[in-house]
């Protein structure tokens, strides 16, 4: 028998003897490394899938979009683009007409949306529409009321692959298929820049340019141009376009934006960075929890070999050879953990993949196995148990052999912190002191176990806390919006209309309507000290049924900003900022910059909302016109009935009940719940494994104490009860630490990652009672009950042989 073979056989027997504990430790490592690898693979998946999807559908490099309600003759924008000096850098040019509308469908479906009409032709396509159901549009569909419906909107509203819909003004369209276009991979709507609005509540219809012109009553008109350029030429072309527009139509309100300004593009890519940071924190937390657990447990198993190490030292075996057996043990456990971790990572990847493809339905999804994250995770997962073994081995070989060999009463070292507990005796029998004394007797082990479980609980609190925080933020916003006139319907018009004109009169005359208050909704932005914030500014008359609640300053005499906006701009009430806003000119609306005072602050967490009083707006030359109506339903009429009634009025772009404004975001949050559920299950499993393994090893270490108690006639259930109590004490410490740690992490991530990815929302950090109850349930109840899994072991304990000590 070779020496190598002896060591391997010996370490295999060590593994076999403690197979349940080894399996549990390996599973702990596997959960940590597998979760780390699985979660961090999603970033690469999403990046590759984004790249492929945007490339396949030829997302634009540049876009010219005219101000709301502004159009030019068809061909104008294309000619302007082809007239620049670097026109040879253009690879694709497409004019479009994009018009807001209401979309009504089966089963009472009625949501805002828009019609996107693109010019067709032989030139290279830009922002094409992929087909996912039904058929694509053909040349024969031009001149007919035929559209392709945005795929996610159709899916989430359970619409068939083909059907009919009604639009504002009563137009009926037939959709022949479902598809996706790059700008609408994620829908953000035209009213402001709220990201992640649920696609369920915004219906996009793709059609030909001429169909869109016919449907929206704008024959021969366009308001949008999208372009693709040769690589590296985008900035040059953008600058020339801006010059050309300023020269050709200085009074025209227009914007030249790049691909990076596409809401869906920005969110899809930035989201990855933000999510990756979040996943990395969560994965590291789980890995840290697994690390503490495997360190604690593996080192205790090796400490049980202390006497054998001492015998070896007494026989003259050099320390490096003594280390072979425990290191082999640690290495084998590590290898098991790493191999299992690959399996766990692949398993976790399956539901993650499904969830992401459901939440972010891109036309191309690439989810190849990511060797990078797995290699990182494997390296960590392999090193941790080895380090866990190295430490007790190093300690064991440093003592005098005689101390390592001592048995029985001579092995007693200290009582740890148990003597502190002696000063606070618990009422009842003497053995009721045992659980707390055991916790304090071995402070290092208690701390490591507590930290391991606390890491799992902190992860759970952080993830559930995100949901709670977003829900609390939306509740806060909803509360502000519904403070008064909760039944009101906000109607946005396609173009500016005279307040005494036929459109406003038509709305007033509806029997479902009791009162109409004209106002304005303007796309604006505020700048100060190098910072810039996009705003949707509402101009409300003094008689509007709802007015912003001002918590600082006043509601008139300037701009009323959200507290978040003011904080991001570093301004206070009374400060002057630069305000970009549309101004009426004889030629139409143009964007100008003015100085304006910050008159007041409102508490709504949505940064985008800003308010101006009517008197201030008069200075913008917008007196007597409106594009926003606040409609009060008549008695006995619901907001939904008002929305239906408005469908027949052509100039109505959208009609939204105040109570449903946050519905879109709540829907998106519910989709995110799936990913958090996976992570929650993993943390639950991890905490249970840590607790089980701790109990199991604790049972082994205290087998002689337990055998003594049983020999004195204490029933097994009482001994088990002590183990449960001891576990519960650790569970309480872990839960408190985990909740505090989780809340701190939630606050930090909200202030950093969330603020970067979702700057438009002032997220309120909040942890709901349900989350605390779950943490308590996991941290205390589950951990406390873990020793029950060792009940059989205790009941079958061989008392006589456990009490005998080998001489």
């Amino acid at each position, binding site marked *: 028998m070779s020496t190598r073979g002896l060591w391997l056989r010996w370490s295999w027997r060590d593994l076999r003897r403690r197979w349940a504990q080894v399996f549990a430790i390996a599973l702990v490592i596997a959960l940590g490394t597998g979760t780390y690898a699985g979660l961090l693979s999603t970033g690469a998946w999403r990046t590759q899938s984004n790249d492929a999807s945007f490339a396949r559908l030829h997302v634009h490099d540049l876009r010219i979009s005219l101000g709301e309600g502004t159009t030019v003759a068809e061909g104008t924008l294309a000619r302007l683009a082809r007239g620049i000096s670097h026109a040879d850098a253009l690879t694709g040019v497409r004019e479009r007409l994009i018009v807001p509308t209401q979309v009504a469908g089966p089963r009472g479906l009625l949501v805002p949306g828009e019609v996107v009409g693109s010019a067709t032709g032989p030139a290279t396509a830009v922002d094409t529409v992929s087909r996912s159901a039904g058929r694509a549009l053909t040349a024969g569909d031009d001149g007919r009321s035929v559209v392709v419906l945005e795929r996610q909107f159709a899916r989430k509203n359970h619409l068939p692959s083909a059907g009919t819909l009604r639009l504002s003004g009563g137009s009926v369209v037939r959709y022949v298929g479902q598809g996706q276009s790059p700008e609408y991979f994620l829908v953000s709507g035209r009213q402001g820049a709220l990201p992640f609005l649920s696609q369920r509540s915004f219906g996009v219809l793709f059609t030909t340019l001429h169909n869109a012109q016919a449907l929206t009553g704008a024959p021969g008109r366009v308001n949008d141009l999208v372009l693709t350029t040769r690589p590296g030429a985008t900035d040059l072309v953008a600058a020339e376009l801006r010059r050309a527009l300023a020269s050709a139509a200085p009074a025209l309100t227009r914007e030249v934006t790049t691909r990076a300004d596409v809401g869906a593009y920005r969110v899809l890519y930035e989201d990855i960075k933000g999510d990756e940071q979040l996943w990395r924190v969560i994965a590291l937390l789980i890995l840290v929890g697994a690390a503490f657990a495997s360190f604690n447990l593996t080192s205790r198993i090796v400490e049980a070999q202390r006497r054998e190490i001492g015998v070896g030292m007494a026989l003259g075996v050099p320390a490096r050879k003594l280390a072979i057996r425990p290191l082999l043990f640690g290495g084998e456990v590590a290898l098991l953990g790493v191999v299992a971790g690959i399996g766990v990572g692949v398993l976790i990847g399956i539901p993650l993949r499904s969830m992401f493809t459901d939440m972010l339905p891109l036309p191309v999804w690439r989810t190849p196995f990511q060797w990078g994250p797995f290699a990182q995770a494997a390296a960590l997962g392999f090193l941790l148990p080895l380090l866990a073994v190295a430490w007790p081995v190093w300690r064991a070989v440093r003592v005098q052999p005689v101390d390592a060999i001592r048995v029985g009463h001579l092995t007693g*070292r200290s*009582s740890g912190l148990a003597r502190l507990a*002696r000063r606070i005796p618990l009422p009842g*029998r003497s053995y009721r002191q045992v659980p707390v004394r055991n916790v304090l007797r071995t402070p290092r082990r208690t701390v490591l176990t507590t930290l391991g479980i606390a890491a799992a609980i902190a992860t759970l609190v952080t993830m559930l806390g995100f949901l709670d925080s977003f829900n609390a933020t939306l509740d806060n916003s909803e509360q502000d919006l519904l403070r008064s006139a909760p039944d009101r319907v906000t109607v946005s018009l396609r173009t500016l209309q005279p307040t005494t004109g036929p459109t406003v009169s038509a709305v007033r005359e509806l029997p479902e309507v009791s009162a109409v208050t004209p106002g304005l909704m303007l796309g604006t932005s505020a700048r100060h000290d190098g910072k810039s914030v996009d705003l949707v500014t509402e101009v409300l008359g003094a008689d509007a049924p709802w007015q912003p609640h001002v918590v600082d300053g006043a509601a008139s005499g300037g701009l009323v900003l959200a507290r978040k906006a003011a904080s991001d701009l570093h301004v206070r009430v009374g400060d002057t900022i630069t305000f970009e806003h549309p101004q009426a000119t004889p030629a139409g609306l143009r964007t100008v910059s003015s100085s304006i005072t910050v008159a007041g602050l409102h508490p709504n967490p949505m940064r985008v909302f800003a308010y101006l009083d009517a008197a201030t707006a008069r200075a913008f030359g917008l007196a007597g016109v409106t594009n926003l109506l606040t409609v009060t339903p008549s008695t006995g009429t619901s907001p939904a009935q008002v929305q239906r009634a408005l469908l027949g009025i052509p100039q109505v772009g959208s009609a939204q009940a105040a109570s449903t404004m946050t519905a879109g975001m709540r829907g998106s949050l519910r989709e995110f719940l799936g990913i958090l559920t996976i992570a929650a299950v993993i943390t639950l499993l991890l905490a249970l494994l840590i607790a089980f393994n701790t109990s199991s090893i604790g049972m082994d270490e205290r087998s*002689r104490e337990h055998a003594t108690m049983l020999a*004195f*006639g204490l029933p097994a259930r009482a001994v088990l009860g002590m183990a449960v109590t001891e576990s519960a004490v650790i569970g309480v410490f872990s839960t408190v630490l985990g909740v505090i740690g989780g809340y701190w992490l939630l606050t930090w991530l909200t202030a950093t990652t969330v603020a970067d990815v979702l700057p438009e929302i002032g997220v309120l950090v909040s942890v709901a009672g349900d989350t605390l109850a779950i943490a308590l349930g996991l941290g205390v109840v589950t951990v406390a009950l873990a020793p029950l899994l060792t009940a059989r072991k205790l009941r079958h304990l061989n008392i006589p042989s456990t009490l005998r000590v080998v001489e």
Partner: protein
Amino acid sequence: MSNFDIALAVPVDARAGAEGTRIDLDDVCRYFVVGDTTVKALDRVNLHVDDAAFVVVLGASGSGKTTLLNLIGALDAATSGTVRLAGTELTTASRAQRTRIRRHTVSFIFQSFNLFPGLTAAENVQFGADVAGRRDADAVARDVLEQVGLGARGDHFAHQLSGGEQQRVAIARALATGNPILLADEPTGELDFRTGVQILELLRAQAESGKTVLVVTHNREISRVADRVIELSSGHIVADGPPVGGRAAIDDLRW
């Protein structure tokens, strides 16, 4: 108090009496199957202890003396034959009944003491009284600890006591139960001569106060102070009677 002056005060509630201290083994066998081999740890053992006595069970390693102790202490079950303790038959007793017997009839003293490291000396002793359901367990514990000469060390943990002191605490724990039968497995095995003698004196005193004390040992010298010596060899009783040469005084022991 010198090392040899151990207070031997009136023992606490011994629940002594012929019935309470009686041990009966009839035709008892205990076999262990190890792979293909059957090990006969005890083979057709007959043993009766009628009155309170200091009984030493003597034998070399592997003679079956510890197996005998485990059967009497309801820690193990005989393969065949009957075991009765204080009139109660153990052979057919359920696990719960055995536990009750260990709680109210026998108390153990182990070679390596097996004190609970998280409890102080006084609390370890109180443990015995608590498990046996005695009222005023803490007062009982204090009294018994005084009896074994460790009244001043009650607040110390096990690792702060010497081996002899730990064994005295273990004896006090067994005494605190008030059970009529004490079973000691090599109680002096880990102690030096002087300390071992102190322990024997304590155990002898308990026998004289009305308990049955059964001491298992391989040390023939210890058997000299017994009332009765039962010698085992290969699972059989090969001798059963008073010590050869008559009972010696503890002071005369030498090992």
